[in-house]
């Protein structure tokens, strides 16, 4: 179990991370989404012990990072932003080095597993500095995965890759079913990879939860009915437990705004009401708000 509470880090005047708390659900990918400078990297650096928090607590499997930093590091895999690697080594030397440091018993087997999965067998004897960006990324990912860590921390792991490479990494991450914290400043990336999301801006968490929920909560429909009354519409719509609604009346038109967290077609109940009450639909518009809108609205103050 990964738990972060009241984490704060200040650099001079800048509050890079401001009192954030979250828990990561096991075996799923949680996105850490925020514009550049939001504090994603700093948060991850605190999780990996590179930066010491001013305040707050980090614990993984009930071990505190302050008290047992080495134990925590044994449970972590980290792929830093920009994917730094020991470029003077060959891929094989690098993975061996990581394996040795992580104290992995059956090095060969462990390395082969990721090498095969990520398709880097062809480049094992090449110097890392000569690899293409895509291969480097896979080497970095393999290194972070070695030793089967309880938590995988990936900082902008897909940025700078071309679309195909991005899809490969994305599919792989989804396949392995590990607890992953995945940061990105690109919403669509998080939308495609993550199950949960933590949206962070100026060091503060501004929204968090299931992506689906964040998406759907905002999916709403606004309908204007003619030839009926507020009470009638209210009675009908109330019978549907999955729907939240608002009613208003303007110049003889009953305005109904409905939304739902469930995956349902919001138009259906509208048609039903219209049929049942014999009320004419004057106007119907979808106010679909995806995460994009939420994200840009929430982070309006400092667009990239």
């Amino acid at each position, binding site marked *: 179990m990964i738990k972060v509470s009241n984490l704060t880090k200040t650099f001079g005047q800048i509050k890079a991370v401001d009192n954030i708390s979250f828990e990561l659900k096991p075996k799923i990918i949680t996105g850490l989404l925020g514009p550049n400078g939001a504090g994603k990297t700093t948060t991850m650096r605190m999780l*990996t012990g*590179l930066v010491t928090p001013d305040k707050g607590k980090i614990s993984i499997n009930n071990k505190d990072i302050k008290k047992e930093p080495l134990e925590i*590091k044994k449970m972590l895999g*980290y792929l830093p932003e920009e994917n730094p690697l020991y470029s*003077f080594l060959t891929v094989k030397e690098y993975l061996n080095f990581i394996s040795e*440091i992580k104290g992995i018993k059956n090095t060969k087997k462990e390395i082969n597993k990721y090498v095969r999965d990520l398709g880097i067998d062809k480049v094992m004897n090449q110097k890392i500095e000569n690899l293409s960006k895509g291969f480097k990324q896979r080497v970095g990912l393999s290194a972070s995965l070695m030793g089967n860590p309880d938590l995988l921390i990936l900082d902008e792991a897909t940025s700078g890759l071309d679309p195909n490479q991005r899809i490969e990494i994305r599919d792989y991450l989804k396949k392995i079913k590990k607890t992953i914290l995945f940061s990105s400043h690109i919403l669509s990336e998080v939308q495609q990879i993550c199950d949960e999301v933590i949206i962070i801006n100026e060091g503060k968490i501004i929204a968090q939860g299931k992506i689906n929920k964040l998406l759907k909560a905002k999916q709403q429909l606004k309908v204007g009915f003619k030839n009926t009354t507020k009470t009638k519409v209210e009675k009908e719509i109330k019978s549907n437990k999955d729907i939240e609604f608002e009613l208003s009346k303007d110049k003889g038109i009953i305005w109904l705004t409905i939304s739902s967290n469930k995956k349902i077609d919001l138009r259906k109940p509208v048609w039903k009401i219209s049929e049942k009450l014999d009320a004419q639909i004057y106007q119907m518009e979808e106010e679909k708000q995806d995460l994009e809108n939420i994200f840009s609205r929430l982070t309006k103050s400092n667009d990239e």
Partner: protein
Amino acid sequence: MMNNLIPLYKNELKRYFYSTGNYVFIALFGLVNNWLFFQNFFLNQQASLSAFFQNLPFLLLFLIPALAMGLMSEEKNKGTWEILLSLPVKEAEIILSKYLAGFTVVIASFLTTIALPITVYTHGNPNISVIFTGYLGALILSASYLALGVFVSSLTKQQTISFLITFAVLFVNDIFSQDYFLLRLPLSFRDVISSLSLTPYYKNIVNGLITLKGIVFIMTWIITFIILSYFHLKSRKDSR
């Protein structure tokens, strides 16, 4: 205890011997020493190591800061520092692996002077113990210079600045042992000041005089800078 020291140390050496710049420093060091020695040998028919060991504190003023300037900071600049610190390694292992790798490069540098003792042995007065104490002193002096270099390199990511600071401190250290400086001081200061310099202890060792005071001073010097580097790393003051 220090399980990761060996893999870290090996990795450091690989890094070191991968960069051409480091070969240049070593080659220059070898070139200067061989040139000075053999010039004297051919012109004056003298095969003696005393000039070599006498010039060493000065030559090491250039070699060691150059070898040490990126020792702690190169990884910070390249970003691999983030990987390193996220791995289950102890701060002490990081410092020691880098220090020991640096020292290994020093030994490699001294290997370029191997022709000197061989020539002395075959042509001059073959006194093995002089050769032995001479090189012992040289390694001890290098180890001391290097400890300072490691600490300075952990303070700044800019290698030129690291070189200059290490060079300057070692330069002052050497001045403290020079007669032309000491003679300008009041008599009562001279002993105190010169006992704060590594050079007199080095000269003693080269001459076969190993004193407790010398050992204590040199050990204190080395351990102090290693521990300062350790605490600096532990504090994560400059992590970015």
